[in-house]
């Protein structure tokens, strides 16, 4: 993309950015202020990713970028040149659901459903993080691989708020996919 300089003060500035979303390549001309979240929703019409607080506090906007979960509201689209983004639409479809989506349905891991795409993206990433040996605040021994305990799952999911309070069912769903009882 072009590096932009010396615009008229106070006027919107646009820039080009290219990245892939769920495997499909996109090239966008965006206002530099556009967050990744707004680019996904408003430009690519991938409205599965939700805007909750828009300040990184609720986790509804969680997506995976280059394999890691992040808050898409707290990053700019132009910062993801060449990036590979996975949203809830890329994890599964109504016809072919991701195992985490199936488990959320089975365990009733939601009420209103607004936080659910973020919860599911986060949960999939949490299991990958434990598998990769990344410790958490509740990991007992820093020099041993973290264990798949209920406490570990809950601590790692603390960046995803569910205002309906479906936490216990969310924990059941994640535990089932992780292969153990919550």
């Amino acid at each position, binding site marked *: 993309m072009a590096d932009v300089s010396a615009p008229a003060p106070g006027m919107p500035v646009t820039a080009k950015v290219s990245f892939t979303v769920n495997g499909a390549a996109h090239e966008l001309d965006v206002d530099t202020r556009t967050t990744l979240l707004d680019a996904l929703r408003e430009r690519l019409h991938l409205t599965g990713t939700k805007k909750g607080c828009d*300040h990184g506090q609720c986790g509804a906007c969680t997506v995976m970028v280059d394999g890691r979960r992040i*808050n898409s509201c*707290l990053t700019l689209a132009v910062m993801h040149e060449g990036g590979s983004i996975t949203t809830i639409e890329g994890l599964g479809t109504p016809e072919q659901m991701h195992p985490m989506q199936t488990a959320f349905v089975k365990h009733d891991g939601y009420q209103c459903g607004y936080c659910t795409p973020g919860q599911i993206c986060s949960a999939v990433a949490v299991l990958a993080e434990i598998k990769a040996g*990344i410790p958490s605040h509740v990991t007992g021994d*820093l020099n041993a691989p973290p264990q798949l305990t209920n406490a570990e799952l*809950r601590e790692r999911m603390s960046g995803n708020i569910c205002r309906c309070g479906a936490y216990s069912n969310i924990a059941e769903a994640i535990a089932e996919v992780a292969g153990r009882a919550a």
Partner: protein
Amino acid sequence: MKPFTYERAKSPGEAAASAARLTDAKFIAGGTNLLDLMKLQIETPSHLIDVNGLSLDKIELTPQGGLRIGALVRNTDLAADPRVRKDYGVLSRALLAGASGQLRNKATTAGNLLQRTRCPYFYDSNQACNKRQPGSGCAAIGGFSRQHAVIGASEACIATHPSDMAVAMRALDATVETVSPDGSARNIPIADVHRLPGDTPEIETSLKPGELITAVTLPKPVGGTQIYRKVRDRASYAFALVSVAAIVQRDGIGRVALGGVAHKPWRVEAAEAEMPRGARAVATRLLDGARPTRENAFKLRLVERTLGDVLMEAKG
């Protein structure tokens, strides 16, 4: 957000020089704090310099046997590094006590040091805040001040520094490496990076305009039992009311730094000689000169008790 131009820096020197050309340019790395503040128009840079392409994302051994942590190493990666987990456990623990998994994946080492206070009066642009608008006053003084500083504060500002990581780095005697717009590099002891508010709370660090952090260096491992204890209103994903970073050696001597009590990570080296005499002796010395508000005076006892808990755990 106010409109801004955007560039991707190609080298640290170029980034620093670019920042010096414009008075209101900002570096952006993780962006997790800066973009939050830009949305609220508390930060209004007219130009962003994206430093993510600068290859400052490695953790390397130093010739002295320590670790050199690149400015762009993400909080998750620093906390998970096997060398950090083994030899600098207090740093891993502090990082893991902070923020959420999503934020730690994005937040960087340098950005964590430079994050701004979460004082609610700083965040609310309808309130007086000398940090946000110098000379406007401080609504936190006389306001809801339960979370605020108890020591080192001033008549102009009682905000705290929100970082957990920086508290551990203070206990570890880290050094911050920078590059300046003229291309020169310098090393700043972590104790001298953050400032007390004084009459100029808007000036939070000793970094000069355009100066870019390139790395944080840790001295060779000092061993000991390393503990980070954070007391907060929720079990996870909340800022500290009080936190204690401690390194305790077998003879009971060691180091202690506090978070949540001041405008910078709080450490008083002279207090550490008191460690064998127990938490009260250490806390008394650490908090000598404290001037809490009516709402946050509880932090003084909380420091002592948290310290007591930490020293007991260290004894085993």
